[in-house]
């Protein structure tokens, strides 16, 4: 198969997997601690989502190998993410923009 996966590079990858595992465990604890902070709801949402996004990025980049993935895959995911945000925010904005009688 491709040179991407010869023995020494796999062993390097394994080191990375274990480091990421550690980071994820730490960030999980951070998430829980952050939820006990005395901050407003919107600040709380923002913080929680930032931390979750960091964890998700680590899983996606290193466990799912996205950091070295082909362009085709990256573009499909970017397109998906755009529509994901459209689906999340446009209904929300429609709701807040509603006419109230």
């Amino acid at each position, binding site marked *: *198969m*491709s040179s991407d*996966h010869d*023995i020494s590079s*796999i*062993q390097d*990858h*394994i080191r990375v*997997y*274990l480091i*990421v*595992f550690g980071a*994820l*465990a730490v960030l*999980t*604890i951070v*998430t*829980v601690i*952050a*939820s006990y902070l005395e901050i407003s*709801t919107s600040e*709380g*949402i923002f913080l*929680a*989502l930032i*931390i*979750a996004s960091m*964890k*998700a990025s680590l*899983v*996606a980049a290193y*466990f*799912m190998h996205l950091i070295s993935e*082909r362009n*085709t*895959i990256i573009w*499909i*995911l970017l*397109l*998906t*993410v755009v*529509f*994901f945000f459209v*689906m*999340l925010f446009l*209904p*929300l904005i429609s*709701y*807040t923009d509603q006419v109230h009688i």
Partner: protein
Amino acid sequence: MEVPYIVKEREDTGLINSKLGIWVFLASEIMLFGGLFSAYIFLRLAAAPGEFAHWSAELSVPLATVNTLVLISSSVSMVMAWASLKLNDFPKYRMYMGITLLCALIFLVIKYFEYTGKFHHDIYPSSSTFMAIYFTLTGLHGIHIIGGMIVMLYFWLPVGSKMWDSQPEHFANRVEALGLYWHFVDLVWIFLFPVLYLL
């Protein structure tokens, strides 16, 4: 005659079919869970202020934290299983895949206790829109865990893993595709956990 690019990558795209296929499938899954997250946002806005926070307090943060760590561990063991195959170490692969299966089972068991705990206190999906979206989101996630476990079991037992003897590369590719799916399931939980339990 076989469909090409199952094991060998196509030159101009640099991809094998299963890699592209599983990512396209995961794109659809992003939109599926996204639809439910969109519902969560909408319903939270439509509910009385503080109602969601009130119902969310019924959930057990410690149990969910444990579950989060369990699922992250299963993600690591899954990628280690694949790496073992790439290092030609089939016994290690079996060990790591076994650990992944075990972690998945633990996750489900904890979820089972969470759910039955709720029912015991007369809390059902019909009790509030928060509980409705909680049960639906975690329920659909749970169905995805079960689906993943079935495939893992197939690749762990001889019925599926015997392909390693005749077509090791093809088998490793299949495990990689499963791994991508499993990491996605972990990813969804990474967002579910704070959104449902902590906010």
